[in-house]
């Protein structure tokens, strides 16, 4: 008995020595496995399940590189990351979106992935998408995240009402123009029913993304200095939405203070014929809409073009991570074509991967997937992504100004003046 115990000790001691020897020998081919922390912001049920399933699969197949799933939330990810970056203990693999990457890359918190990205992954994702994760970091321009999910702005419409009004159902190749859209909302506004509901509680990204339809960029850079511009191109979408609210009276003013998902109950109840939405909102319709409620996905509207500003969800590697190569290995596996298709289905968004876009579900006409997937070609890099200090501009200047404008408290000229004067002041804080 005693001898058995002793020999057990000996074996244990030998393994410990062996392990430490393996470690000091360097490399991860032998010895102690590395553990990566993966901060995920998945929140929709299917997406959560897909994320966790993939992590479990990876851990089973890669005993040497273990991934620990850490649940984060879009609501407070910025604060969480700032504190963990400052504290020097950030997660290795970080899920976020491109608008957040600009700041973090500039502050040197993220690893430049340019040289780490395997060719296969590089080729599977189009350059336009890579553009949404390319920023000026401390060591020059680089790719600071792998873009994987994108969102386009569409309209969700009550099929029955469209049929009754006998309007043309648009396709991706023959979309509605803004003029046509405004005419149609007039037709759809009957009695107490409105043609459209604009939920504009957070108006900035929506307006800026849509304004690209008319070439409105809102920012200009000359001599390394970025300033705000509100010219005729920027005014188009602003004016048109305002007209629907106060001139045509085809948009329900009571939805102005609502967030994106809030008008849905009214939409089901037939209070308005259409709601503008990111494509992910289709999921809620599938889950919540009363049975028999028929809806269609209206592809992106056309101004001069159908172009919309795009941001991507991304996976990045922290600069303080001790295992950047292993992290990249995990990311490139996690975001291969098949997995991206799963993640896209889980979040009801468009995958950046060209292979994933071929997935039969993502091209079928069920739930408007074909429209959503095809709308990817309208997505271009959102100009504000490259603006240093956009976050502060958005929350201090643009959000209150746009809210006041859409509430008809200030005129378009006053709005333009506010955005440029106050906006330039904010942006000058960030000028290098």
């Amino acid at each position: 008995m005693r001898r058995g115990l002793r020999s057990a000790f000996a074996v244990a001691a030998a393994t410990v020595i062996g392990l430490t020897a393996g470690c000091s020998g360097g490399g991860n081919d032998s010895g102690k496995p590395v553990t990566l922390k993966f901060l995920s912001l998945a929140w929709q049920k299917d997406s959560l399940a897909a994320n966790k399933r993939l992590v479990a699969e990876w851990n089973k197949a890669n005993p040497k590189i273990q991934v620990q799933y850490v649940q984060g939330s879009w609501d407070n990810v910025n604060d969480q990351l700032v504190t963990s970056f400052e504290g020097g203990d950030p997660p290795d693999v970080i899920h976020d979106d491109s608008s957040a990457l600009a700041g973090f890359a500039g502050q040197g918190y993220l690893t430049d992935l340019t040289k780490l990205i395997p060719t296969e992954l590089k080729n599977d994702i189009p350059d336009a998408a890579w553009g949404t994760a390319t920023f000026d970091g401390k060591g020059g321009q680089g790719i600071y995240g792998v873009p994987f999910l994108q969102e386009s702005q569409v309209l969700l419409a009550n099929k029955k009402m469209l049929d009754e009004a006998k309007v043309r159902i648009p396709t991706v190749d023959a979309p509605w123009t803004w003029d046509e859209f405004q005419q149609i909302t007039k037709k759809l506004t009957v009695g107490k029913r409105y043609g459209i509901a604009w939920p504009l509680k957070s108006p900035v990204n929506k307006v800026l993304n849509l304004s690209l339809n008319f070439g409105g960029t809102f920012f200009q850079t000359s001599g390394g200095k970025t300033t705000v511009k509100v010219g005729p191109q920027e005014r188009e979408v602003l004016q048109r939405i305002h007209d629907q609210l106060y001139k045509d009276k085809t948009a329900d003013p009571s939805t102005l203070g609502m967030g994106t998902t809030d008008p849905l109950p009214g939409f089901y109840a037939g209070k308005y014929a259409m709601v503008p939405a990111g494509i992910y909102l289709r999921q809620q319709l599938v889950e919540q809409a009363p049975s028999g409620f028929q809806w269609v996905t209206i592809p992106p509207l056309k101004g001069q073009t159908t172009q919309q500003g795009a941001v991507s969800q991304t996976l990045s590697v922290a600069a303080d991570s001790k295992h950047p190569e292993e992290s990249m290995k995990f990311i490139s596996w996690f975001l291969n074509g098949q997995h991206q298709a799963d993640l896209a289905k889980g979040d009801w968004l468009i995958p950046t991967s060209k292979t994933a876009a071929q997935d039969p579900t993502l091209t079928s006409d069920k739930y408007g997937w074909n429209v959503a997937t095809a709308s990817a070609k309208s997505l271009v890099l959102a100009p504000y992504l490259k603006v240093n200090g956009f976050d502060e501009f958005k929350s201090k200047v643009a959000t209150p100004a746009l809210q006041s404008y859409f509430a008809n408290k200030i005129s378009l000229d006053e709005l333009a003046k506010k955005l440029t004067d106050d906006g330039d002041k904010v942006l000058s804080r960030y000028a290098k």
Partner: protein
Amino acid sequence: MTATQTATRPPRTGRPHARPNPRGGGDRGTLLLLLPALVPVLLFSVGPLLYGIYLSLTDARGGRNAVISFVGLKNFGDVLADGDFWSSFKIGLIWAVGVTVLQFLAALGLALLLNQNLRLRGLARVLAMAPWAMPPIVIGLMWRLVYHPNAGILNATLQNLHLLDHNVDWLNDFGTALPAIIVVGVWTGMPQTTVVLLAGLQGVPKELHEAAAVDGASVWRRFWNVTLPQLRPVIVTITSLDFVWNINQFAMVYALTQGGPGGRTRLPMLFAYEEAFRYGFFGYAAALGVAITLVVLVVLGFYLWGRMRESAR
């Protein structure tokens, strides 16, 4: 030699006279006994305070291995010129004064009620304490449900009573957001204030009331001329403490509105928080913190000075 000795001696022998110490030689002992209490104070209050003051004199910004340089009072100059901050400070004052005054009035009423010989008084007193037991974040989340535009109990109740014909988004409407959070602030702070005032009320001698009653003073006269003057020191203390707590309130408002809509509820502490943790200007945020502290000290100083002078008269 002797000259130097005599020259050095006076201060040494003079000490006991300059600083009379009745217990004799207890100086070191007192310090030693104070030490356990002092260490946490130095470590967790004075230390961070000094570090904050240091940061406020630098251009510290977020960034890996960021270089920090000393900029003197530049941050404070920027604070003075920052219109956004002062409008946020104005909101902070409306909030703090509003909450403190309403809280005091409501708590005084509740304390008077709980001081009566009611049935189930013990239970009522315990229930009145309930909000105290909740962390501010939980309070924020709970009230967000109460104010919810579609599913909130407030809209439902008001509509059932036919006081309202459509749902109001209390926390997102420019007009109602600030009043809505003030109501929550009053509700949250009432227990402390009530307890303190109740304790004060119990310290008012019964004889005074009896004497006044015998002299034929009405209930209102007795309250105004007996209870209130007796309560004055308690009132001064609790209102000034409430004011400081309220102007520094952060967690609850953060959970309720995060400073929205359009900055209508962006209290100064939220403003400083955003400067630091959202935009990464740590030095400037520290300067904001120091500025808020100074302004609160000045406001409070004036208030207490005024009260003291009044009671000295």
